[in-house]
């Protein structure tokens, strides 16, 4: 039987009225909460406004794929209610945990005190079963953000929702109507089961491995020699060039605002309106490529922060990133918002339409890319500078640091590379060549990028040819420039190199070859300005999230550095961003792909005084 959801297409102001019927809504009209706690049926995600909120985390029976399943919901909805705050005000959120497990909520991208950040083990102990936690902090920013569980794999099961913060002053972005677009990936299987399956057979979801049929076609097309050159490297490395997403549409149903493509979330507009879409990727493991055929999108904010508007046909959004785009549909017709997964194994879809009955065509999925030398960290050619485990032909010998040079770093040292005393000035990125840490030469690392490209202007695997192939302009990080002048104009005092590492076949993920459980924290001095240089020594695309501090992406204009909270590090590539360590505390720093996160994780500790 088909579910029926009230379409979440009511304009914002009416929506607020509608939300009054939702349980546990507090603060709005002073109507103090505590409706009886019950979780019977799924509701559309409400928008809650004000300064005081009660959020109830509990299981919720859902049917998203046609099978009955159990989600983790907030106030009975998946996604969790949208929270609407005002910049400069203090908010007080009491989060009740009705699960039999510890839970937590992390306010993703928010600048707040460390004990409000919601990371069990770093910020606080977590919210015990049956308990609650009072989050109380000043809202110091505006824009589109989101919140999610930081406990176990709860986020995968539905515990995510949008945060919209209205600016204290006039909004530089003009719009007539807005819609929140929360993208996510849903599986009826428990996330622990998916993770275990990847540990047992890491290529389980890759159904595009090279076959003899491909081989025959390639030989006929390009000859034996060229085909051999293509295949030899991958086969020698024991890797697959179709390994683009660990988990994909075989396991996942991709959702917009909690609705499957069939359920078709509907957002209304009137022709001629300026429509602001607040797009949030709340997926556990899926990068989406988003477009609206027939419309140009003007990107006005990245990760909640206003940027100089840039018009594109398509953008990639990684888990935890947010983009605000303005569209102006002039025609009185329906449009499809189409978000295909990075490996083209499935899509999320919604309809934007003036009329509830209308739908637009769903486009076919784009061509399927294969990883190439660039993604292996061989930026220039196939001269095999990338060193593979056990590959004696590689440049491993001269890349491997001598024991003498690294003797003082110790086994789990985080400062993997001795970098020069005077880093390049702010805005231009690191000019430093790098070495791999001694810890990167262990069983948990199957690849080290030898010549990592600068990932800044790379739209990423699958999107690189879209200009030629489809005539689409695709957003690149190098298009992002802050709308406002750079807050902290200081040059970095030092550079910190982080290598993203892993062993695909064992499904192990780490930083600098060391998993979180075995790692020492990264120590930052309070108020220091430094540059993070992140090198991706894997073939996967990793969105790296730093809590509590901005990641200021160096896109070329030191006067308008865009601030992000989550930065894509392209496969086999490097990227750098500046960080002002202006918040003392213990912050999480990790890959936001849920199943990479347990290992590819560090504590970043900002300490006052002398380190």
């Amino acid at each position, binding site marked *: 039987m088909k579910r029926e959801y009230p379409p979440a297409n009511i304009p914002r102001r009416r929506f607020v009225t509608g939300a009054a019927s939702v349980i546990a809504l507090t603060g709005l009209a002073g109507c103090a909460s505590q409706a009886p706690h019950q979780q019977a049926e799924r509701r559309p995600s409400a928008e809650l406004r004000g300064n005081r909120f009660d959020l109830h985390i509990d299981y919720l029976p859902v049917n998203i794929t046609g099978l009955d399943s159990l989600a983790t919901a907030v106030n009975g909805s998946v996604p969790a209610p949208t929270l609407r705050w005002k910049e400069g005000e203090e908010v007080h959120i009491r989060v009740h945990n009705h699960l039999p497990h510890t839970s937590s909520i992390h306010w993703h991208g928010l600048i707040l005190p460390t004990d409000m950040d919601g990371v069990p083990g770093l910020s606080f102990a977590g919210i015990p079963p049956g308990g609650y936690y009072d989050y109380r902090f000043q809202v110091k920013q505006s824009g589109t953000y989101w919140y999610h569980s930081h406990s176990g794999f709860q986020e995968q099961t539905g515990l995510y929702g949008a945060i919209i913060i209205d600016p204290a002053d006039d909004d530089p972005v003009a719009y007539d109507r807005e819609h929140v677009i929360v993208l996510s990936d849903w599986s009826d299987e428990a996330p622990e089961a998916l993770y*275990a399956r990847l540990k*047992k057979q890491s290529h389980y979801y890759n159904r595009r491995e090279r076959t003899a049929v491909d081989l025959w076609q390639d030989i006929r097309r390009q000859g034996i020699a060229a085909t051999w050159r293509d295949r030899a490297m991958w086969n020698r490395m*024991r890797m697959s060039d179709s390994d683009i997403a660990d988990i994909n549409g075989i396991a996942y149903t991709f959702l917009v605002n909690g609705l499957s493509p069939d359920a078709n979330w509907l957002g209304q507009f009137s022709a001629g309106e300026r429509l602001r879409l607040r797009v949030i990727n709340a997926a556990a493991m899926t990068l989406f490529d988003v477009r609206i055929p027939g419309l140009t999108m003007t990107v006005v904010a990245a990760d909640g922060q206003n940027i100089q508007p840039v018009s594109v046909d398509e953008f990639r959004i990684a888990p935890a990133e947010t983009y605000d785009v303005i569209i102006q549909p002039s025609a009185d017709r329906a449009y499809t918002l189409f978000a295909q997964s990075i490996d083209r194994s499935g899509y999320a879809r919604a309809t934007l339409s003036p009329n509830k009955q209308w739908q637009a065509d769903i486009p076919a999925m784009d061509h399927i890319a294969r990883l190439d030398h660039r993604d292996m960290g061989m930026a220039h050619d196939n001269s095999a500078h990338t060193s593979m485990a056990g590959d004696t032909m590689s440049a491993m010998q001269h890349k491997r640091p001598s024991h003498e040079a690294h003797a003082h770093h110790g086994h789990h040292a985080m400062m993997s590379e001795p970098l020069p005393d005077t880093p390049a000035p702010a805005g231009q990125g690191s000019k430093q060549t790098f070495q791999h840490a001694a810890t990167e030469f262990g069983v948990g690392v*199957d690849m080290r990028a030898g010549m990592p490209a600068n990932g800044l202007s790379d739209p990423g695997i699958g999107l690189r040819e879209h200009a030629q192939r489809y005539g689409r302009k695709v957003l690149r990080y190098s298009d992002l420039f802050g709308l406002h002048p750079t807050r902290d104009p200081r040059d970095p005092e030092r550079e910190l190199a982080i290598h993203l590492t892993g062993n695909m076949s*064992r499904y192990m993920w780490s930083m600098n070859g060391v998993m979180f459980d075995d790692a020492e924290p990264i120590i930052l001095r309070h108020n220091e300005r430094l540059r993070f240089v992140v090198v991706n020594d894997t073939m996967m695309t990793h969105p790296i999230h730093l809590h509590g501090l901005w990641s200021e992406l160096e896109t070329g204009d030191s006067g308008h550095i865009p601030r992000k909270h989550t930065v894509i590090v392209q496969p086999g590539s490097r990227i750098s961003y500046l960080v002002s360590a202006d918040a003392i505390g213990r912050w999480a720093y990790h890959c936001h792909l849920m199943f990479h996160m347990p290992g590819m994780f560090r504590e970043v500790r900002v300490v006052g005084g002398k380190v």
Partner: protein
Amino acid sequence: MKKHYVLCAALLAGPALAGGKADPVLAKFMVDEVEQRSDHQQAFSLQGWLGTDLNKLWLKAEREAHDGSTEDAELQLLYSRAIAPYWDLQGGLQRSFSEDGSDDSVVIGIQGLAPYHFEVDAAVFINDQAELSAELELSYELRLTQRWILEPEITLEAAAQGDSENGAGLRREEHALRLYYYPEREWAPYIGAVWQQLYGDTADIAQRRGNPRQQEQFVVGVRAWF
């Protein structure tokens, strides 16, 4: 003792607070082959492990039977430790059963994936008479399509000394070719052929007992893991 310590430590480690547990204790059970061979023979080969990313308790079992009665069987209990990204070092005990009774050996082996995707399982055995033998298994998955896989496999057995059943030097060579069809990732029925050649004294002894020096068989079976 060491493997117990490692496993207990893994089980007792608290849950990772900041996310899911990075390195949970998992178990995998692999039915590599369960097959009926021509000439009324049956064979199976099973493997299972329990453990974490780098440390596992590994069980291997093989049995060849004729009309249901065991001709040869081997059971190995190993501690397996990752020593390189694609390689595990394995050590433990083997009990082998034949028509003449059972025999216990210490096993040291290496299992993993060689460049160009060759699966390797190599081990040396020292039995209670201090006799040394070795076994090498090499296989390759040739992916015809996403579901059809052709797998050639080579097995070599050699020994330093002879005994009542076997000679010294290269004893046995087996080539197998199996064609699998995977309706799901987890299981596949297959058909194939196995060609086996015995050498030297091993072949002579087999022949005296009425067994062939050389054998070709057709096989049909199923493979699965979970």
